[in-house]
């Protein structure tokens, strides 16, 4: 356990080493936050209430989604695929630690850094410029970080899984692009799932991706209370467990057929 704690700390420090990049990144998140907030405000100027969302929910959603973007990290993570492609995974297998837990620990450390420095600042700036909705119930302030942590686990487990495509494919990028397109759209990263047509909304909630972005946002907005809140967190935990186990199964299948190219 102590070992994985140290790995997580390294994951944190790897990103903490570039403060200028963090500032530039925050700036980009804020620019996109403004654009999306204005677009959604124009939508809600036409239609005051869409599903559980009103204009105030929509701007709050916008700044949470910008803050979660780097924290949950659904874009561009190919580290495991690169290690498989290069054959370095063979060295990793000799190490006295669990391959998946190693990367999970690393990713949780990374997420802690991004939550603090890429998550909170854009939200605070957004809260100054727009009328955001803060949870009144202290229980939600406790449930939200739990939900974000679960979202990171689900996101990691999915990324780990599609990265393993590199065991079977020479060029993993095709799978990576499809995974990115689907997870971006169905996670609610782009627009709230509540705006989807009904059939698409049901589909989105039946898939694991909603647990990555939309679920913590729903918790923060107080759209799920009491039993529903517990159910939402359980749903996230369920997807996290299922995808992690699937990742383990696929990884061991991959290593069984692993042929390391010499050179």
């Amino acid at each position, binding site marked *: 356990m102590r070992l994985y704690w140290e790995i997580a700390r390294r994951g944190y420090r790897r990103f903490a080493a570039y403060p200028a990049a963090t500032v*530039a990144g925050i*700036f*980009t998140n804020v620019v996109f936050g*403004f*654009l999306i907030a204005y677009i959604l405000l124009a939508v809600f100027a036409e239609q005051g209430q869409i599903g559980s969302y009103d204009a105030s929910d929509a701007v709050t959603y916008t700044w949470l989604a910008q803050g979660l973007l780097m924290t949950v990290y659904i874009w561009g993570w190919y580290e495991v695929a690169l290690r498989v492609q290069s054959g370095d995974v063979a060295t990793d297998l000799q190490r006295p630690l669990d391959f998946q837990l190693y990367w999970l620990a690393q990713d949780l450390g990374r997420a802690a850094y991004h939550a603090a420095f890429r998550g909170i600042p854009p939200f605070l700036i957004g809260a100054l410029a727009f009328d955001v909705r803060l949870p009144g119930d202290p229980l939600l302030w406790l449930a939200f970080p739990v939900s974000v942590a679960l979202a990171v686990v689900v996101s990691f487990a999915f990324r780990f899984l599609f990265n393993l495509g590199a065991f079977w494919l020479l060029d993993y990028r095709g799978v990576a692009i499809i995974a990115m397109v689907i997870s971006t*759209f169905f996670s609610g990263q782009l627009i709230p799932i509540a705006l989807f047509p009904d059939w698409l909304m049901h589909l989105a909630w039946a898939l694991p991706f909603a647990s990555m972005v939309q679920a913590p946002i729903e918790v923060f907005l107080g759209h799920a209370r009491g039993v529903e809140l517990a159910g939402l967190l359980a749903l996230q935990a369920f997807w996290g467990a299922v995808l992690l186990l699937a990742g383990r199964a696929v990884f061991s299948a991959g290593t069984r057929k692993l042929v390391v190219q010499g050179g």
Partner: protein
Amino acid sequence: MADTIALFGVYRRLVGARIRSQLQYRLSFALNTLGTTLISFVDFAAILVIFGRIDALGDWSVGEVAFLYAISSVTFGLADLVIGHLDLLPRMIRQGELDVLLARPLGSLFQVVSSDFALRRLGKVIQGLAVLGYALVTVEIDWTAGRAGMLALMLVTGVVIFCGIWVAFASVAFWVVDSTELANAFTYGGNYMAQYPVNIFGAWLRRFVIFIVPLAFVGYFPALFVLGKEDELGLPEAFQFASPLAAAASVAGGWALWRAAVRRYRSTGT
């Protein structure tokens, strides 16, 4: 003048070589193009989802927003092909590659620009053209020679405006290394913003994209003329014809910033 023609000849040879080399790996090229096309469609899917809930966004119908979206995607996509590798400038500075360019007897900007031609990013242009087709079928445009000419013109001025913005914000890398994301906010962010009607944004942001970084002239103003729409902002009609001016200003601004940046450039010493 002869110099310019000679320079163009050099550019054609360099870029021709880049294109040929990219076409060597056909499958990889096809997958890359398909990938960028797919990714771009997610953006447009979001617009379609929004219009499932409302009939008009800031008084623009789905077809009209699709028109703006298409113009922005096609022109940004083309600018990206020609000049998008300016995003690599921070790395070139960090690794000292830029110093090599400065020692050669050709313009530094010319050399950076001709160092690549990202045909693999053609996907965005293809997707933009598909959406343009959808827009032209959906919106009833009262075609005149003037409107058709304006559509052709805005496809050119849009590319030029985006190129100017790209050069301007890439120049920031000379002052702040690690500035890729900062430039992205204006290039990719500019592309995103130009996909929507300017009148839905806050007043300060509208002024910014009309008078400082002329994104409103990529789609919004010329589109008002092509689509025969009333300007919600109530600005003079002359704005609808001012895209060439905006393009000239954008390029002049980008060029001036680049010159100023190169002049004060001190190598990182690596």
